[in-house]
């Protein structure tokens, strides 16, 4: 029995990731909307700040990162809501797979549909803000890692607030302060790349964040889900 369980975890994760991806693909608006939001807010900045490309390119790293952070927040707000409503979150908590592992497939699927997508199209948005194309690799790399960290942290907040009425704004209050280091490291990597510095330090810190987040966040997420289910 235990042997079967050991093998099952990997299989379970794979099949659950596929399940969540299918769920996301069936309602593509959930995947597209954060991207449209990202684009829309980025358009608002030149409208508010004026079209001067020089000024925009100075502000671009900050704008891109703050907007990425906000669209990540939108994704986190939806993270466990449907699963709580249809009862699958409870099934997850009672399954034989440890809950801290069982939440990972959903996070993976969400990240593939949001963070990965956003990172890959971000050079386009960067171009709109006057970022030179040669910093695109740094932009993509920093966003790939940054969105992963933010999703992990946001999932902790989402797990804690999913059972609460009107938890959305509460979620923002809980996790935005925790996003500060990600924002700082992310914009720093871009600024270094823009001004001829070395972005690898900031990127390495983001990488450390992903590793640490993957180790610790699932435990907190699992504990949060248990609190929300009042188990």
């Amino acid at each position, binding site marked *: 029995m235990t042997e079967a369980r050991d093998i099952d975890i990997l299989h379970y994760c794979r099949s659950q990731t596929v399940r969540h991806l299918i769920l996301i693909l069936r309602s593509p608006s959930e995947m597209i909307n954060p991207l449209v939001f990202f684009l829309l807010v980025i358009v608002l900045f030149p409208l508010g700040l004026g079209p001067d490309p020089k000024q925009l390119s100075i502000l671009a790293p900050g704008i891109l990162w703050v907007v990425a952070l906000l669209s990540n927040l939108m994704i986190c707000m939806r993270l466990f809501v449907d699963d709580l409503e249809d009862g699958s979150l409870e099934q997850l908590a009672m399954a034989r797979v440890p809950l801290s592992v069982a939440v990972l497939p959903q996070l993976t699927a969400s990240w593939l549909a949001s963070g990965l997508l956003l990172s890959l199209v971000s050079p386009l948005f960067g171009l709109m803000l006057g970022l030179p194309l040669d910093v695109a690799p740094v932009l993509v790399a920093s966003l790939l890692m940054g969105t992963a960290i933010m999703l992990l942290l946001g999932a902790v907040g989402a797990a804690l607030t999913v059972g609460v009425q009107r938890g959305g704004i*509460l979620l923002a*209050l809980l996790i935005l302060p925790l996003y500060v280091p990600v924002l*700082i490291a992310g914009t720093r990597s871009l600024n270094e790349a823009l001004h001829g510095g070395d972005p690898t330090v900031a990127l390495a810190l983001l990488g450390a964040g992903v590793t640490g987040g993957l180790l610790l966040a699932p435990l907190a997420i699992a504990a949060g889900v248990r609190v929300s289910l009042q188990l």
Partner: protein
Amino acid sequence: MWRIIHQFGSPPWVYRFCDRVIPWLFPITVLALLAGSVWGLLFAPTDYKQGDSYRIIYIHVPAAVVALAGYYVMALAGLVSLVWRIKLADTAMRAAAPIGAAYTAIALITGAIWGKLTWGAWWVWDARITSMLILFFLYAGVIALFEAYENKTVAARACAILSLVGTVNIPIIYKSVDWWYSLHQPASIKFTESSAIDASMLYPLLGMIITFYALFALLMMLYLKRSLTEDYARSAWLHKRLTA
């Protein structure tokens, strides 16, 4: 050793403990606050650069020190409540959050006043100020999360998890804000504290820091007593205690 720790899990014992300590701690704290303020505000020497305006340090620094320590008190109570499910730890955590937030607010406000006098601006994006502001938001998050749940036991568990996540993050946030500031540092700001502080200024400061800790403990105990009276309103031990 274990007996002493176990006693802190027992509401009647803690209630009695608070009853015994508060009559002592209350006057001592008030006297120390008065003495420290008078010492700091009147007798400590005037700073050669900042004049008398530096004297706000005797409120500002102790508040900032205890504000950060308060978060760890809260997180520690949260850990105890998560691991051992001790209800009193929930109450302690609930008590620490608003008190800590108030200390943070005091540190921020006195910092703004001090900044206006020495730097000429109410708000400067200095690394330490920014870190304190984020600390205030962390406190606000815990308080808001607590208010959001109707079941207070569940709320306490949620807050415990959040404050533990915050504890892991606080050093990272502080380091990253320092790092951010080193990139943006404007040359106009210099900290006079970086030069070693003279003993005649340091002792009243240390005294005030200890006093602010005592005040924190006092406020915690008063809060604990009040919520114990609320939670155990129908218990025999409380009736006996109150009618005795």
